[in-house]
């Protein structure tokens, strides 16, 4: 269809040759309008056009005022045309109203149209239309009624609504659905402009909702959407009705007329989805009613058409707004994936928008699409870029803030749109203010950029809150001093350069800061600052507001003596200024500079004058000032019940309180959802930055650096560690740009995977499950391990049985060849948890009493009769002696009996080798007769066969369970099997991982699975951090990479080469541990063992 349109429109010849065109023939080409249009197109200059139109308007004016013109309709159309071209034809407004009033139906139609185009609802002439509308509403001609309702739905004087309301209401009962529908829309308009006027007819809305015509019902939903938005509680009872309607629509129960390109009533669907999301928000029981139909909508909308995507988008939004349901969320997340990955730019944009919406609830979703997001960040279309920044803004935390702000500032430099600039500058300032203490210099530099780019457009409160932050400071006096000094240092060169180019607001900030804090810089003479400031006064473009800031700063700085000449000159100049404020400031400057004593009293250094009074009052017990909106909010809160059960009762550390308190409460609610864990990070020294570990790059200020001897490692291990490192997934060679992107990704999305952010969002139980969802590897981010496993428990159900020795069993040829042999023994090892992978040791061990019947290629070593013939006395101790020689030197676990029957006795132990874990199974024949095993051979009476299996872990679990079967044949020919299982703690698979701090830093960023927990510290005589780390090292074979002050980094690996990194920090009597690994569940399992290890001490 659209193709047809495109084709015909393309075939359009130029405007000048239009006489022959069929389109123009439809309307008389000789008409005056036609002439006008043609006349205009023939003109070449704007001036000529103006002349022609003015001439035309004069002609129209003349004709409309003649008493009995029959041309009114055409004249009106021509006026509309002139107005569209941008020429005023206000003389025709009154005629439009007259035409609507007195004309025939055909004229009325044009009259109404002209009125709706010319006037807006506040125009006084509109009052003259009221009577016409009244008359037409009562007309028996349906078309007249329709016209009246149409104009009423577009514009109507608010005060006159009561006059026509009864008539419109009456139309709700009209037999024609088109009239009913228009009446509903008129009421909707009334509701929007004057809700209290239509309050009494709410029951009529319900009637409209139940109208037998779907069109009328659809129209009524506009009103309901509005009303529910204002007060969802009042309409909860309608939820089942809305759900039923949506179900019917989705199920295709509406007449075909409502289809749009075979999709049933998309507008209606979208309207309903919006209503449902309002109703289900924060309401579990209501949400439950709609899960089914939402699921259905997601499924039905499969067709690849824009309109289905529009519905899907609304559906996803709804699912993420209402009370969460995990499988729906999963489907919705998948759906967002389709959007984001779509090659169609419009869909991609909408995908980003949806992501922006949902990351507020689930920041991890951004992780899944990190590579796409990075690509979008470089997209040539600015709107895509802009939306990506919006998304990043919502996932900003303490770790990625610098990178994100950098990206925003980059965008600001290329953006030309004022609105975008204002918006982005505000966001950058917000982020910078949120994490100021972490990076002093960064904060000041960022704010400098904000002030220079934002110029005088930005919101005035940005400089205000910046100054407030600077003056109030944070917890540490030293840090405050540094911050202020840095600000001073950065401003001096700016003033020495070209201050004329700086925006006024920035100059005001600079003056204030210099006035307050330039004394912090000792090598800076006040005289120099004064002369720099005085220069600002002389600049032509300095506003008088700026000048007054400068004068105030000078007042604070002048000390008399050498400065006197500058200040004297300035104050003389401005004491005769016409601006009273400037005059006042100049006089202040004059008097205070001459009287140092008075100055010291009025402007005491350090406590920035204005606040001194406040702090004194506060100290005396006065209530702190709260801005009006906060007071109002608190008032509301005290009235209403808190609906968020856990949102507010979280332990927030003191430092974060002091920071958030300064912000308005809205900001707190804005940021708390996102910054989650980062709140707690405030005030922590920056150790890991976007380039990784920063120890070497930043001077460590704290003296508490403890040199910890690296764990005793054999040189062999050291080498092995290195080789291991080179095998880690991130190290796989990737093309250069790709690597860059990945680096960007890791710096942008750092900190998102942490689960602690969940708790701060005030949402409850179902969240963790959602957070478990991991990347469905798009093959882009190599830091992701494709893993679709969703499990919230650490112990997963048995799955993926690896039958190791199936070769042995399936060698049926072998078996038939050896048919004369009577007993068969075979083994198969399987693992519970689906996590363990055992390999048969193929080495032939020369255990004592080696049986000649031993088959070469078998793992099972049959041993001859042991020294102890009595099976009853066969203990573990003596089994020790059966250990293969190459293992006997290594430490092994206790040999544990596994199971036994009348003929076989199974025991096992595991031996930790450097690079593997060996499971040793002892099979002892406790019967009188020999047992034949194929292909392993025979185990004679009272002898022991030993099997060795090398185990590796595929998917970590707290305990790895190995399940095995021994199948054998007794001489009698009966085949039997014996099953056993053996549990190995995960710790047996853990080995130290020797890395350098630098390597650690790079790896840290690339690992996507993580967990955080607080552990108890060991408090013996030693320093607690070292003591705890040493204990963990001893128990779990971890490698302590480095300890700096209150932080330590530890590394280990899971056999064979799956690394896991651990970051420990002492915090308020706890050891805050953060584990990261490329392997899912490994951090969780390891933290369990750490806990156990520390508890057992």
């Amino acid at each position, binding site marked *: 269809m659209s193709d047809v*349109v495109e084709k015909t*429109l393309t075939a359009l010849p130029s405007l000048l040759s239009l006489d022959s065109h069929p389109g123009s023939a439809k309307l008389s080409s000789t008409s005056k309008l036609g002439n006008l249009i043609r006349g205009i197109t023939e003109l070449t200059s704007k001036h000529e056009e103006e002349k022609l139109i003015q001439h035309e308007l004069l002609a129209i004016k003349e004709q409309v005022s003649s008493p009995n013109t029959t041309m009114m309709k055409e004249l009106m159309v021509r006026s509309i045309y002139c107005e569209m071209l941008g020429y005023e034809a206000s003389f025709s407004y009154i005629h439009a109203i007259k035409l609507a009033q007195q004309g025939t139906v055909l004229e009325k139609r044009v009259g109404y149209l002209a009125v709706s185009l010319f006037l*807006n609802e506040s125009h006084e002439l509109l009052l003259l239309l009221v009577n016409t509308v009244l008359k037409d509403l009562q007309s028996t001609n349906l078309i007249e009624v329709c016209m009246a309702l149409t104009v009423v739905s577009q514009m109507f004087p608010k005060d006159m609504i009561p006059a026509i309301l009864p008539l419109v209401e009456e139309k709700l009962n009209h037999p024609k659905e088109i009239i009913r529908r228009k009446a509903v829309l008129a009421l909707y308009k009334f509701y929007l402009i004057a809700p209290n006027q239509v309050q009494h007819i709410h029951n009529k809305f319900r009637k409209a909702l139940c109208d037998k015509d779907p069109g009328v019902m659809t129209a009524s939903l506009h009103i309901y959407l509005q009303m529910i938005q204002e007060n969802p509680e009042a309409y909860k009872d309608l939820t089942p009705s809305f759900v039923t309607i949506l179900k019917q629509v989705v199920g295709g129960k509406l007449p075909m007329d409502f289809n749009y390109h075979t999709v049933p009533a998309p507008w209606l669907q979208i309207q309903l989805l919006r209503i449902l999301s309002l109703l289900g928000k924060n309401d579990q029981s209501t949400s439950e009613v709609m899960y089914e139909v939402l699921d259905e909508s997601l499924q039905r909308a499969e067709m690849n058409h824009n309109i289905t995507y529009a519905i899907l988008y609304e559906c996803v939004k709804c699912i993420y707004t209402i009370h969460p349901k995990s499988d729906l969320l999963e489907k919705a997340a998948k759906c967002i994936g389709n959007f984001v990955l779509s090659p169609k730019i419009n869909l991609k944009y909408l995908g980003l928008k949806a992501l922006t919406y949902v990351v507020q609830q689930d920041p991890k979703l951004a992780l899944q699409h990190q590579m796409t997001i990075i690509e979008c960040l470089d997209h040539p279309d600015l709107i895509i870029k802009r939306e990506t920044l919006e998304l990043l803004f919502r996932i900003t935390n303490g770790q990625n803030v610098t990178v994100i702000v950098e990206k925003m500032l980059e965008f600001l430099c290329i953006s030309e749109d004022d609105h975008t600039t204002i918006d982005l500058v505000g966001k950058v300032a917000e982020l910078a203010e949120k994490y100021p203490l972490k990076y002093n210099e960064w904060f000041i530099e960022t704010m400098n950029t904000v002030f220079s780019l934002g110029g005088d457009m930005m919101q005035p409160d940005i400089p205000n809150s910046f100054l407030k932050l600077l003056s109030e400071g944070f917890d540490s006096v030293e840090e405050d001093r540094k911050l202020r000094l840095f600000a001073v240092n950065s401003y001096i060169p700016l003033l020495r350069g070209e201050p004329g180019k700086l925006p006024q607001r920035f100059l005001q900030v600079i003056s204030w800061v210099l006035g307050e804090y330039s004394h912090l810089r000792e090598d800076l003479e006040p005289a120099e600052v004064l002369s720099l400031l005085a220069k600002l006064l002389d600049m032509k473009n300095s506003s008088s507001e700026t000048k007054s800031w400068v004068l105030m700063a000078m007042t604070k700085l002048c000390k008399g003596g050498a400065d006197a000449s500058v200040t004297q000159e300035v104050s003389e100049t401005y004491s005769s200024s016409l601006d009273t404020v400037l005059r006042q400031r100049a006089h202040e400057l004059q008097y205070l500079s001459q009287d140092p004593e008075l100055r010291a009293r009025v402007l005491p250094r350090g406590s920035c004058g204005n606040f001194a009074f406040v702090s004194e009052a506060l100290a005396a017990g006065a209530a702190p000032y709260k801005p009006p909106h906060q007071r109002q909010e608190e008032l509301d809160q005290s009235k209403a019940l808190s609906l968020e059960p856990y949102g507010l009762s979280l332990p927030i550390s003191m430092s974060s309180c002091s920071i958030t308190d300064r912000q308005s409460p809205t900001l707190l609610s804005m940021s708390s959802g996102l910054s989650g864990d980062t709140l707690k990070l405030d005030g922590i020294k920056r150790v890991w930055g976007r380039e990784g570990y920063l120890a070497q790059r930043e001077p460590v200020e704290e003296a508490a650096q403890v040199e910890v001897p690296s764990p005793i490692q054999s040189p062999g291990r050291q080498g092995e560690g290195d080789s291991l490192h080179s095998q880690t997934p991130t190290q796989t060679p990737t093309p250069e740009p790709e690597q860059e992107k990945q680096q960007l990704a890791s710096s942008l999305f750092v900190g998102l995977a942490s689960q602690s952010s969940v708790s701060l969002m005030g949402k409850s139980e179902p969240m963790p499950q959602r957070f478990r969802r991991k990347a469905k590897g798009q093959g882009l981010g190599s830091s992701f391990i494709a893993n679709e496993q969703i499990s919230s428990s650490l112990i997963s159900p048995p799955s993926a049985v690896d039958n190791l020795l199936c070769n042995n069993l399936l060698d049926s040829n072998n078996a038939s060849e050896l048919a004369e042999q009577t007993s068969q023994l075979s083994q198969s090892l399987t693992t519970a948890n689906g996590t363990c992978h055992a390999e048969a040791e193929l080495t032939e061990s020369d255990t004592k009493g080696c049986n000649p019947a031993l088959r070469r290629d078998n793992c099972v070593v049959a041993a001859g009769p042991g020294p102890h013939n009595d099976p009853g006395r066969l203990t573990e101790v003596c089994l020790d002696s059966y250990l293969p020689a190459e293992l006997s030197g290594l430490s092994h676990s206790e040999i544990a009996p596994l199971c036994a029957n009348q003929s076989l006795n199974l025991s096992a132990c595991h031996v930790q080798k450097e690079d593997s874990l060996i499971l040793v199974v002892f099979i002892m024949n406790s019967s009188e007769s020999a047992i034949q095993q194929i292909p392993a051979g025979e185990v004679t009476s009272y002898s022991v066969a030993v099997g060795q299996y090398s185990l590796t872990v595929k998917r970590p679990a707290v305990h790895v369970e190995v399940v095995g079967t021994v199948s054998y044949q007794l001489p009698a020919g009966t085949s039997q099997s014996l099953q056993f299982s053996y549990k190995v703690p995960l710790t047996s698979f853990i080995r130290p991982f020797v890395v350098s701090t630098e390597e650690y830093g790079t790896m840290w960023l690339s690992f996507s699975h993580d967990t955080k927990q607080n552990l108890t510290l060991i408090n013996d005589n030693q320093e607690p951090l070292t003591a705890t780390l040493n204990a963990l090292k001893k128990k779990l074979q971890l490698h302590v990479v480095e300890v700096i002050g209150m932080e330590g980094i530890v590394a280990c690996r899971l056999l064979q080469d799956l690394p896991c990194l651990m970051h420990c920090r002492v915090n308020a009597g706890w050891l805050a541990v953060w584990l990261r690994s490329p392997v899912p569940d490994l951090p969780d399992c390891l933290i369990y063992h750490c806990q156990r290890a520390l508890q057992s001490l």
Partner: protein
Amino acid sequence: WRRNHRNTSCVIMSNNMQFMLLFSRQGKLRLQKWYVPLSDKEKKKITRELVQTVLARKPKMCSFLEWRDLKIVYKRYASLYFCCAIEDQDNELITLEIIHRYVELLDKYFGSVCELDIIFNFEKAYFILDEFLLGGEAQETSKKNVLKAIEQADLLQEVRYVIKPPWEQ
């Protein structure tokens, strides 16, 4: 809050269209419909800025753009640009389909619509628009029903047109 945040978390506005503009590739306005009360000066300024912005866009670019605090959804059909302004929380895709349905309606009414049809019969284009969108909301999405309503009104006009002149003259 102070910085005019897009508060996507709670407010879902109705899909209220702010205005619709039709203009040619040469930047000539062909149709304008304002659903929010604005002064003429403001309207002119918006039109001028938007026409400029949209015409500067390249063909493969996104059909949406941010403009002031609004979202602009536009689509080009041959020589004509259809351009709607919606609020940020609104659904851009459905707005794109509203444009498309309007084009379909015009096409059916005029029979292979072209820019000239709209230029010379712009009041008809307005009638169709008013029948399809009322106060910025889609009121009747069925092609058949919209055109039926228009044709009924047209018929009345034409009948009177024919019948009236002899009596009046």
